C-alpha cells in the first residue's frame, strides 16, 4: 500500500458519511464514564434522529470537572456545540436541538479560555474520533505518516526528521528523542525492541491514560515508525493494570491494525515487519523506570539495575531497546506529516512542541490540557484552569509528581519548559500539575510524597529503601509539631545522600519534594519547629 491508496481508503470512509450532517460525540474516557457518560450515550442513541445524525462515543475532551461532556458537531466543519454535566434525562433535549437552537442551560461557551487557549497536536483526535474505530482513525489521516515513512523515506530520513523537530522525551527526563533513536539505530544487532512506557504512575497524572483511551492508534503508529527508524521488529506497550479501559482500547486497536495489515508481517506490503504486544504492570510505580520496566516485561521483580549499560545498548533480554513514553510516540506522526521544522517552530528555544498537562487539585477546571511549551504558568492556572475556587488564595503548584517540586505564587510568571522548571527545583515530569490553595500545608505535601516514594521504593538499594523511610519518619515528626532543629538538619543531610547515591531515578529524585518545599516554603518548616520549642 502506498500513500495514494491509503488516501483513497480514507476518502472511502469519509464518503460513507455523506448524508450525515451532525455528529453527537459523547466523552467515554474514564472520568466522564464514572460520572455517568454511559447512560448519556445510550439515551442519545435512542433519542437522536435516525437519519442525518450519528451518535458516537469518543475519547477525552479535556474538561473532566464538567463531565459528562457531549459535543454536537456539524460535519461541514462548523463549530461544535459543547454541553456540560449532561445527564441521561437531558438526551431528549439535546437530540431535539440538533440542527436548531442549542440547549442553553447545558451549554459551555465556545470561547471558554479552557478550550481557546490550548493548541492540540497530541490530543487533536481526542474527543473527536471513536477510539475503538480503526476506520475512524483512517478517516482523519491516520497511518499516513507510517505509510509515508515505509514507502517514501529511509530510516535515516525518519531519524533526521525527528531530530530536526527537537522533540524531547515526554516521560519526564526530557532526553532528546532523535538522539535516543539514533543511538539505538546505530547499534549493530539482529534483534531490537521498541517499548512504549505507559506505566503512568505519578499520582495526579492521567495524560497517558487519556491518550490511550482516546487515540490508541496514534501511539501504535508512532511506535511502528520508531521501529522502522531504529530497525526493531518487536514492540511492547507496558501499561498499568489500573487502566483497564486504556488496556482494552489498546488491545482492540492492535488487533484491528493487525487485521488490516498495518501491524505484523510485511506491513502494507513492504519489507518491514513489526509485532506489538501489551504487557500489564501490577502496581509498582518503580516500573516507570526503564530498567525496572524491562525487568518486569521479562517477568521479574521490577527492580532497576545500574546504568550504563543503557537500554539503547543492552535492554530487553540484553538487546538494544528504544523506550519512549506514550506522549512522545503520539507526537511522531504529526512530526513526519508536517515536518520537523514545523514542530520546531512551536514552543521555546530548547523545549519544542506542545505538552499535555493533567490539571488537578483545588482549581476550577480540572482535566486535560495541551499547550505550547513556554506557556506562562499563570496562564495555565488562572486562565485555562480558571483559578482557585471558593475565594481562596493560590499557594503552590506541584509538578513532576514524586520526583518534582512545588512552586509558589512568586514564580507564576515563568514559562513552562524543561529548563525553567529545573532551575526552580522542580521538573516538567510527565505532566501532572496539582494546584494547592492556602489551606494546604507544604510540610504535609512533602510528607505525602515521601510516603509515596517509601512505599514505592523497590528495596534494592540501601539509600532509597532505608533513607526514604527515615526521611518520612522525620517529616511525620515535624508535621506533628514535634520536630527539632537537629531533625531538620538530619533531614537535609539524608536528602543529599539519597539524591546522590541512590541506584535509580526514584531514589535520586525522592528528596525533590522536600528540597523544593524547603527552598520555597522553609518558613512553614521553621514554624512547625518553633511550636515545639515554645
Amino acid at each position: 500500500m502506498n500513500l495514494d491508496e491509503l488516501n483513497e481508503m480514507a476518502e472511502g470512509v469519509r464518503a460513507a458519511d455523506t448524508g450525515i450532517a451532525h455528529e453527537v460525540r459523547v466523552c467515554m474516557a474514564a472520568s466522564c464514564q464514572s460520572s455517568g457518560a454511559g447512560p448519556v450515550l445510550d439515551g442519545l442513541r435512542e433519542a437522536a434522529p435516525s437519519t442525518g445524525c450519528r451518535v458516537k462515543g469518543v475519547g477525552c475532551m479535556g474538561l473532566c470537572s464538567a463531565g459528562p461532556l457531549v459535543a454536537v458537531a456539524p460535519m461541514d466543519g462548523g463549530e461544535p456545540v459543547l454541553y456540560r454535566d449532561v445527564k441521561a434525562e437531558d438526551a431528549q433535549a439535546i437530540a431535539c436541538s440538533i440542527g436548531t437552537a442549542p440547549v442553553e442551560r447545558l451549554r459551555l461557551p465556545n470561547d471558554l479560555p479552557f478550550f481557546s487557549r490550548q493548541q492540540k497536536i497530541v490530543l487533536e483526535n481526542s474527543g473527536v474520533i471513536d477510539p475503538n474505530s480503526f476506520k475512524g482513525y483512517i478517516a482523519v489521516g491516520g497511518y499516513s505518516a507510517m505509510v509515508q515513512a515505509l514507502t517514501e523515506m529511509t530510516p535515516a530520513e525518519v531519524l533526521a526528521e525527528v531530530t530536526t523537530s527537537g522533540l524531547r522525551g515526554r516521560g519526564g527526563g526530557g532526553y532528546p528523542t532523535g538522539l535516543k533513536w539514533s543511538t539505538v539505530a546505530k547499534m549493530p544487532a539482529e534483534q531490537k525492541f521498541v517499548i512504549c512506557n505507559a506505566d503512568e504512575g505519578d499520582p495526579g497524572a492521567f495524560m497517558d491514560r487519556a491518550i490511550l483511551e482516546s487515540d490508541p492508534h496514534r501511539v501504535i503508529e508512532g511506535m511502528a515508525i520508531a521501529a522502522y527508524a531504529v530497525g526493531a521488529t518487536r514492540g511492547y506497550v507496558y501499561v498499568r493494570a489500573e487502566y483497564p479501559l486504556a488496556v482494552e482500547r489498546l488491545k482492540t486497536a492492535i488487533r484491528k491494525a493487525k487485521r488490516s495489515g498495518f501491524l505484523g508481517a510485511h506491513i502494507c506490503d513492504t519489507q518491514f515487519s513489526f509485532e506489538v504486544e501489551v504487557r500489564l504492570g501490577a502496581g509498582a510505580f518503580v516500573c516507570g523506570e526503564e530498567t525496572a520496566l524491562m525487568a518486569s516485561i521479562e517477568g521479574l521483580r521490577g527492580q532497576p539495575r545500574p546504568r550504563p549499560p543503557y537500554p539503547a545498548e543492552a535492554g530487553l533480554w540484553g538487546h538494544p531497546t528504544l523506550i519512549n513514553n506514550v506522549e512522545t510516540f503520539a507526537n511522531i506522526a504529526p512530526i513526519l506529516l508536517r515536518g520537523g521544522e514545523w514542530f520546531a517552530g512551536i514552543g521555546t528555544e530548547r523545549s519544542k512542541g506542545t505538552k499535555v498537562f493533567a490539571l488537578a487539585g483545588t482549581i476550577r477546571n480540572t482535566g486535560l490540557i495541551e499547550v505550547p511549551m513556554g506557556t506562562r504558568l499563570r496562564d495555565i492556572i488562572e486562565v485555562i484552569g480558571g483559578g482557585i475556587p471558593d475565594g481562596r488564595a493560590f499557594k503552590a503548584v506541584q509538578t513532576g509528581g514524586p520526583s518534582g517540586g512545588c512552586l509558589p505564587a512568586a514564580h507564576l510568571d515563568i514559562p513552562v519548559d524543561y529548563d525553567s522548571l529545573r532551575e526552580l527545583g522542580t521538573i516538567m515530569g510527565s505532566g501532572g500539575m496539582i494546584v494547592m490553595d492556602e489551606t494546604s500545608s507544604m510540610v504535609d505535601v512533602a510528607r505525602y510524597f515521601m510516603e509515596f516514594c517509601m512505599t514505592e521504593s523497590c528495596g534494592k538499594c540501601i539509600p532509597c529503601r532505608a533513607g526514604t523511610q527515615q526521611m518520612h519518619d522525620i517529616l511525620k515528626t515535624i508535621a506533628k509539631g514535634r520536630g527539632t532543629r537537629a531533625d531538620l538538619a538530619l533531614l537535609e543531610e539524608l536528602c543529599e545522600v539519597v539524591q546522590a547515591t541512590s541506584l535509580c531515578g526514584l531514589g535520586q529524585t525522592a528528596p525533590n519534594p522536600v528540597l523544593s518545599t524547603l527552598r520555597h516554603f522553609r518558613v512553614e518548616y521553621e514554624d512547625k519547629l518553633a511550636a515545639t520549642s515554645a
Partner: protein
Amino acid sequence: MPLPAPQPQVRVVTLKIDGQDVSAREDETIIEVARENRVPIPSLCYLEGLSVWGACRLCVVEIAGTDRLLAACSTRVTEGMQVITNSERLQRYRRTIVELLFAERNHVCSVCVSNGHCELQTLAQRCGVDHVKVPYRHARYEVDSSHDLFRLDHNRCVLCTRCVRVCDEIEGAHTWDVMGRGTDCRVITDLARPWGDSGSCTSCGKCVQVCPTGALVRHGTSVGEMTKDLKFLPYLSRRRHGQ
C-alpha cells in the same frame, strides 16, 4: 618478517585512580581494577565470583567529567578515566549509608555469633562510623532455626542478596529469593516457608559462607565463633562459567 599478532578482542586502557596511573582491560570494572592495585573501595553486595548487583551503593566513586556518582562495581573503566574513590564527600555518604543499615534492623554486634568476623562491623569501623545519627527503628524480625545445619536471623540481614545469587548462579538451586518491596523486603526460601522445610535447598551451605553478616550462620556457634570462608567461590565460579 613475522606478521603482526592478531588484534586482541579486548583492548587495554590506562586510567587514573586517586591520582595513580593504572592500566586495565577495558572489560574490567572500576572496583576490579582498584582492588588489583590495592586501592580499597568499600562494598557489601559486590563479591568476586557472583554477578554484579549494584545495590549497596557503598562503592560509589566520583569520575571527572560527570556530576553523577557511579558504582565502581557496575562501571567499566574507559581510556583516560579519572576516578576519585575517597573524597570527603564520598566518605560522608558512605558513613550515612552504613548508619542507615545499622538503624534499619537489629545489628547488635556484641551478642552476634559473627562478632569480629563481620563485614558490616568492619565496614563501620573502616568508614569511621563510631555512632549512628539516624534513629534506630527497632522493628521485630524473625529468626528461622528450622534448618538442621544453619540459622537465618533476619535481624542481621542487609539484603545484599549474595545468598540469592550464590544459590542461583553457583549451586543452581535458586532456593533463595527476595520477597516484598521496600523496607518490607526479606530473603526467603521457596514460598517463604521455614528454611528447614525447603524442598529445593541442598544444604550446601554456600549461602552461609557468602553472607557478610551474622544473618546466615551455622548452628552451634556462640558469640564471635562464626567464621566464614570464601575461598571456594572464585574456583567454583570459574568452573561454572567455563573459564
